[in-house]
């Protein structure tokens, strides 16, 4: 019971924390879905095992591990491409500043 209380409290706190930031509609919906799924699995742990059995995975814990791994890959790719886009934006800005202020011999 103790761990369930801790997990439920953590999930609710996380959803409230993320919700306090002004996110877009899609991001808010995703956070709510993940939060709802987390609460459901904490309250009813056997559900993960039943879903895993339906999908042909041995244990519920394994299923969650696979989903967690896939989610981590998506998040990593998302932030990698965002970082690359921001690098290009910074380069454009730095280039504009450099070209706007050339130092000529004798300056």
């Amino acid at each position: 019971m103790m761990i369930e209380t801790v997990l439920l409290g953590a999930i609710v706190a996380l959803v409230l924390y993320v919700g306090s930031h002004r996110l877009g509609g899609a991001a808010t919906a995703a956070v709510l879905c993940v939060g709802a799924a987390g609460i459901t699995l904490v309250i009813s742990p056997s559900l993960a095992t039943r879903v895993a059995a339906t999908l042909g995975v041995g244990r519920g814990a394994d299923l969650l591990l696979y989903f967690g791994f896939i989610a981590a890959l998506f998040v990593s790719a998302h932030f990698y491409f965002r970082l690359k886009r921001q690098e290009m934006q910074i380069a454009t800005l730095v280039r504009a500043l450099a070209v706007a202020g050339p130092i000529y011999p004798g300056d």
Partner: protein
Amino acid sequence: MDDLWVVVPAYQEQDAIGTTLASLFAHVSNVVVVDDGSSDATGERAAAAGAVVLRHCVNLGQGAALQTGISFALGSGARYVCTFDADGQHDPATIAEMRRALEAGDAQVALGSRFMGRSIGMPPIRRAFLRFAVVVTRLMTRLPVSDTHNGLRLFTSAAAKRIRIRQLGMAHASEILAEIAAHKLAFVEVPTTVRYTEYSKRKGQSLFNSVKIMLDLMYHAWSG
């Protein structure tokens, strides 16, 4: 050669930039050094040597510095734009040969080739990497080039305007060739002499960077 601008990307090159520029100014009159966020006196020494200096306020990489310099040169009315390494490994006399090659034919780009010319003091491992890079680049671009990572190039202004360098780091060398292929720009290779000094070898690419270049190119190919 008042209508020709030489672009020299430079990062932490205070020990070599003065000598490199002195040798360049014996052959050309317009040089722009792009100081890529150096924390040493690269920019000051380049300005003292008579070059126009553009300063990146943060370090972006050689590809970004080249694009900055090329944009500036085109904006300054250049008919020809040359790229030239800051560490002094190229022979500036080759620039005139490259220009003659462009004026004599239909090519819009002249690419330096150390494998058609000479390389002095090249470490065997670097030779092996460069040979491998030639094979990979030929496969990717279908261009029959003999040297893919030679920093000495000459573009007509029309060609320089079409080539867009998006690779901020060292992968720009392969990207430039990919742009030449994509825009169907006619090119010619010109034999060059590349001198490897202890300084240039220290400043050169590590094997780790070579792997990073490959990853950058894969990202570029993926993201278009």
